[in-house]
């Protein structure tokens, strides 16, 4: 294993490791734009130039493999001068768009200019003028002037989605990123180029001008779009709106971006997953309980639900349909409740659309279809049930489970949907972003969903409603006071979940028992 000395620290690295990778593995950042772990090496930005002893010129750290005995300096005068020089070159034609650019606050040009630039511009010539705010796709806007030509977006479309929409056009200083005239950036992963772009040349239409990134409260959680369970960071707006004098905070999801998990989604997320929150925000929420079509208090609704479910359970006419987006804790809590009330067939609704693709997208749109099935079994649709408990968290009308006409429905879910409209009792529960829990993806990997913001209206975590219904039915409800308690009980009862705790899930999840890698 080659040994390299970087800024006086000796380290041993695997053969083939580049200087940049060696530094990053130690938490030592060498500034760079064009390099990305998930893409081929371009070596064009020249920001990562470092000084290797015995080399006549500075070398780029992203491309130079470590050789045994190599001595590298990343902070000496030569390197500092080169970095300042590169920063100056980057900025001479760059438009001063910071006040209106989404990237502000997470922009590498800004950060490196402060850290490595000279702070003074010597450029007195006119700046190059190119096209701004170009609509190149359903979700992406291009600003050619801001572009620093790092080619990450081109490499993404060539190497990851293999759709090749983007390219360099013209030559020299007039080079620009562009899209073939008449074509659109319309692959299912187009939004990733926005994450990749180190500056504000590519921006997401849905996030454009929504808020400043420093107003976002970020939560690491799991996407609820399909059974892949891409790891994401949800950004909830914290900017005080100017429309109310009381300084009300927005507290709505402003964007979702992927985070790295090499076991699940690498660095990427599909556009549909990126924008699930819009569908959620666009759907009608159930905010207060409803009994027999009229608004009711939570306690009245819980009492009525308990009455209906207990009666049906006793008569053996009870069944349940569970959304595959429900977190495992909710499914387990309701299974426990139903068992105590007399039991009945439980069916995990199937949400399938399209096909699995070669990248991330799964046809199974149930983010927790695997976890729900492990808990509730693979029972068929309960057609014989006269009373149905519908645990809903499906977004589209088309995705709602079909319920036979005339069935008595007890609905517990976040959205106003078909079932809830005809329900005898409808109780609002927290949506995917409003409560924590555990998803199990199609690989059998258990991952932690985290609450991003408070539930709207009277909604609350579904497992709490289960406990309240059980108590209202006069049964002994388990003494769970948090999701962790429910998970612990779940792990003790269902073998596949054995050994899983909130701590063990961490940020990247763990393979559940019996799956590959467990």
């Amino acid at each position, binding site marked *: 294993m080659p040994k390299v000395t970087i800024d006086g620290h000796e380290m041993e690295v695997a053969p083939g490791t580049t200087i940049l990778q060696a530094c990053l593995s130690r938490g030592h950042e060498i500034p760079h734009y064009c390099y990305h772990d998930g893409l081929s*090496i371009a070596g064009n930005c020249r920001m990562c130039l470092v000084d290797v002893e015995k080399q006549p010129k500075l070398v780029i750290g992203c491309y130079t493999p470590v050789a045994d005995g190599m001595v590298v300096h990343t902070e000496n005068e030569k390197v500092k001068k080169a970095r300042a020089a590169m920063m100056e070159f980057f900025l001479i034609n760059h438009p001063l768009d910071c006040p209106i650019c989404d990237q502000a606050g997470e922009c590498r040009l800004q950060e490196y200019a402060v850290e490595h630039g000279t702070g003074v511009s010597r450029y007195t010539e006119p700046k190059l003028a190119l096209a701004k705010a170009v609509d190149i796709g359903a979700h992406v806007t291009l600003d050619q002037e801001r572009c620093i030509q790092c080619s990450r977006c081109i490499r993404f479309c060539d190497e990851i989605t293999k759709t090749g929409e983007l390219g360099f056009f013209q030559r020299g200083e007039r080079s620009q990123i562009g899209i073939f005239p008449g074509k659109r950036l319309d692959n299912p992963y187009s939004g990733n180029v926005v994450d990749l772009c180190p500056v504000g040349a590519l921006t997401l239409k849905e996030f454009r001008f929504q808020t400043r990134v420093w107003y976002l409260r970020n939560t690491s959680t799991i996407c609820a779009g399909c059974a892949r369970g891409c790891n994401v960071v949800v950004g909830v707006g914290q900017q005080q709106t100017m429309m109310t004098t009381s300084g009300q905070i927005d507290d709505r999801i402003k964007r979702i971006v992927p985070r790295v998990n090499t076991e699940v989604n690498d660095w990427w997320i599909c556009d549909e997953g990126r924008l699930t929150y819009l569908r959620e925000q666009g759907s009608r929420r159930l905010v207060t309980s409803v009994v027999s079509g009229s608004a009711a208090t939570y306690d009245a609704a819980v009492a009525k639900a308990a009455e209906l479910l207990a009666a049906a359970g006793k008569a053996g006419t009870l069944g349940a349909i569970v959304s595959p987006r429900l977190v495992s804790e909710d499914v387990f809590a309701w299974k426990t409740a139903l068992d105590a009330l007399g039991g009945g067939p439980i069916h995990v609704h199937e949400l399938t659309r399209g096909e699995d693709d070669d990248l991330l997208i799964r046809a199974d749109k149930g983010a927790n279809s695997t976890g729900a099935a492990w808990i509730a079994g693979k029972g068929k649709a309960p057609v014989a049930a006269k009373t149905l408990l519908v645990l809903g968290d499906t977004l589209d009308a088309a995705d709602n489970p079909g319920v036979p006409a005339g069935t008595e429905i007890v609905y517990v879910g976040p959205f106003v949907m078909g079932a809830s409209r005809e329900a005898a009792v409808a109780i609002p529960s927290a949506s995917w972003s409003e409560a924590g829990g555990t998803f199990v993806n199609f690989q059998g990997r258990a991952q932690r969903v985290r609450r991003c913001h408070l539930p709207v209206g009277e909604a609350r975590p579904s497992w709490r409603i289960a406990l309240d219904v059980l108590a209202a039915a006069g049964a002994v409800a388990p003494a769970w006071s948090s999701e962790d308690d429910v998970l612990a009980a779940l792990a003790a009862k269902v073998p596949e979940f054995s050994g899983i705790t909130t701590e063990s899930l961490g940020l990247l999840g763990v393979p559940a028992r019996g799956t590959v890698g467990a």
Partner: protein
Amino acid sequence: MPAERILTRNVGRPDSTALASYEANGGYQALRKAVGSMTPDGLTEEVKKSGLRGRGGAGFPTGLKWSFMPKEVDPKRPHYFLINADESEPGTFKDRLLMEKDPHLVLEGTLLGAYAIRASVAYIYIRGEFVHATQVLERAIEEAVAKRYAGKNILGGAWSCELVVHRGAGAYICGEETALMSSLEGDRGYPRLKPPFPAASGVWKCPTTINNVETVANVPFIVERGADWFQSVGKAPKNTGPKLYCLSGHVRRPGVYEAPLGLPMKELIHELGGGMLHADRPLKAVIPGGSSVPVLRADECDVDLDFDSLMAKGTMLGSAGIMVMDASTCMVAAMARIAHFYYHESCGQCTPCREGCGWLERILNRIEGGKGLQQDLDLLLSISDNIMGNTICALGDAAAMPTISFVKKFRDEFQHHVDHKSCLTGTLALQGVR
């Protein structure tokens, strides 16, 4: 006594492009000898011993370059020989002469090189503007194939080598060997990061050698007359062989002149070239190696035109494009024009060249047009310094080196433009032409 014409022996003869004429003058005997009685490695050794250095601009020892190729051909990774006929360095026009007037010399040299590196196809990458040379070469290839000098089973032997002419389409950067490969593969002419070097992984990831037209034109003579003979021409051991010098600018007889390596510059300009264009305008400056090398003042022109002598003088032989400037030349205007070239030709891949070349040109235009600022001269030097050594390929250096040399050696002229918004030479620079 005039030197023997070796490379240009056929130039000027009637029908010099025809195969019959080439054969009548002993053409393709070298190929016959090599294929018949030499091994590829033996041929490479001979070229190594000759001391032949690349004539494209870098002066890299040719035999050494050939020796980097694998000695056996992996059938999954054929060897490729590429002839760099992209001649675009300002001041250079020697390869064009050879291709237009003695195409078979170029082809024979190509075939010999292909034989040495065990290639079975050679692509001649010729700049798109050389339409006439392309047609001449293609006709010559047809003739050569018909006579079994190229194509299948050359001279009845086992070795086959196809010759393909590949036209560029207007990009100086494609003369850079890795950009040439990118272009040949059908991409934008972007230079590539090295390593890997072409001999390890070149076009289509296969072992590749790239040589200049004039370089390979020397090889038939090395084969025929031997490495020792080649060493006796020019200045042994490292500056050997005949050389084509391209003389242009303010001289009475611009043109291509052949002489052994090491021709004194004064002899080229004042004797072969007929001296200064105007008797009353003395020599002011000379760029000896194509515009990418540092300029020499008139008092620095007592120098031999070979690789090492010019290097010792702080410049380079490069492509041997000797551009002569007399006293009427505004050095600011000249440098602005040179800077425009690099701005126009930069591929745009890496930051310092892409942004820096345009910046240099704009500052120079301002100075030339009377809008220079006091800080501009040092700024030019600083920008050039920031470009040098930090780019993917040498085009950035090629823009920086002349800038640094012009500003340093003619600083008073630049300063005059800044201070007085007018030109020392009295020649009115044409403003607004850009």
